[in-house]
């Protein structure tokens, strides 16, 4: 099937089979391997991308469902250097193995688009479904708080 959609700001078309996930289309058809497949069941958050302005799990969406949509992946975030959130992750040591990081960053970029000044509760809700087995979340939470402080100064 033919799909036509906006990927990281550019109009793209692809010929794909109907039984591929959006995650597979991004990684295998377009070579955008920054988006990770952790669990493949929507539990871990590593495959989070932004679709039509909302963060979603690309492993639970069919590639053909992307037709006509606008999608941003982790590759778009650092197109012009690291984002504030990515810098904060480095400063707070919020990255170890890094596998979950693209998902956390995409959830965060979407959060800061929704609100410039999220409450602790809103940050926790945004991070809620993301699993990190290395850092224990505290550093990640602090990185989010740091961006928040910067943005509201």
């Amino acid at each position, binding site marked *: 099937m033919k799909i036509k959609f906006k990927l990281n700001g550019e109009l793209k078309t692809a010929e794909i089979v109907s*039984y591929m*996930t959006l995650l597979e289309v991004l990684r295998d058809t377009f070579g955008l391997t920054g988006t990770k497949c952790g669990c493949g*069941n929507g539990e871990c*958050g590593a495959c989070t991308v932004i679709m039509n302005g909302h*963060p979603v799990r690309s*492993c*639970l969406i*069919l590639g053909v469902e992307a037709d006509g949509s606008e999608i941003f992946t982790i590759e778009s975030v650092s197109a012009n250097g690291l984002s504030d959130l990515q810098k904060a992750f480095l400063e707070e040591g919020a990255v170890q193995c890094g596998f979950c990081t693209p998902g956390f960053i995409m*959830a965060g970029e979407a959060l800061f688009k929704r609100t410039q000044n999220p409450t602790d509760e809103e940050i926790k809700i945004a991070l809620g479904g993301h699993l990190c087995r290395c850092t224990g979340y505290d550093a990640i939470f602090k990185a989010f708080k740091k961006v928040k402080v910067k943005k509201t100064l």
Partner: protein
Amino acid sequence: MFSRFDYYAPQTLNDAFAALSKNGNARILAGGTDLVVNIRSGKIKPSLIVDLKKIKWLSGVTKTDRGIEIGPLTTMNELAESSLLKGPYSLLSYAAKIMGCYEIRNRATVGGNIINASPGAETLTPLTVLHASVEVSGNNNKKLIPLNKFVTGPNNTVLSGGEIVTKIILPFYPQLTAGYYMRRARVKGMDLASVNCSVLVVNPNNIEKCQVRAAFGTVMPTPYRSQKAEEILSGKKITLDLIKQAASVINSEINPRATSLRATPEYKRFMVEYFLKTGLSKILGVTF
């Protein structure tokens, strides 16, 4: 990764019916947060996926003379943020707000949640106490089915292969009617409910007309309401003693299965009184 299937995204309901009637092994796709998982695990092997998301009127919350009408494709986040789901309906938007995680809530739909009919489905007990009806459309007919008759068991509804849920309708309630949704899960974050409960009090300010409804999830195959327990609590000043009586009636009627992965029958039975007490106390603003 998947078994093979075709995909079709009709623009109209009639096109959807035509596709469903031609293919006996078709499955309807709404948000996909259950469907895609079930296809991947091999639990279901559809030959055609009919994606309803291009039929825009199947999504959104509106107020009509029938009541509050919710399109089946309305996502959990849309329910959580709807300005129409306040007051009597706020327990539904709260349940939607704590389901899964933020990204899941951007895709998961209320129609999918009730059709998947998990015994602990987040929206089922709120919709049950709110007396929701489900509008089911077939090729040439349309019928309204009360939610408690719509859901027949875990992952089972009265829906037949060619039918589509086109609305979920909530009746109007007197202004001060209020409800409360509660759940217990194994972890604070993303998990299915081990046991859950919705309490609704219609006319909480008028003891004679006051009507208490309580629906429990995961204690029976479908959301459970006890007529006897609700009668004990309705139309009078509620006391701890009445709550204990009602809980004991409910416990004599339910039969939580012993093989649940998430909670023991003993725990679920223990939670009955706690949920009633907490729900009524939050709604009525008194401590028991």
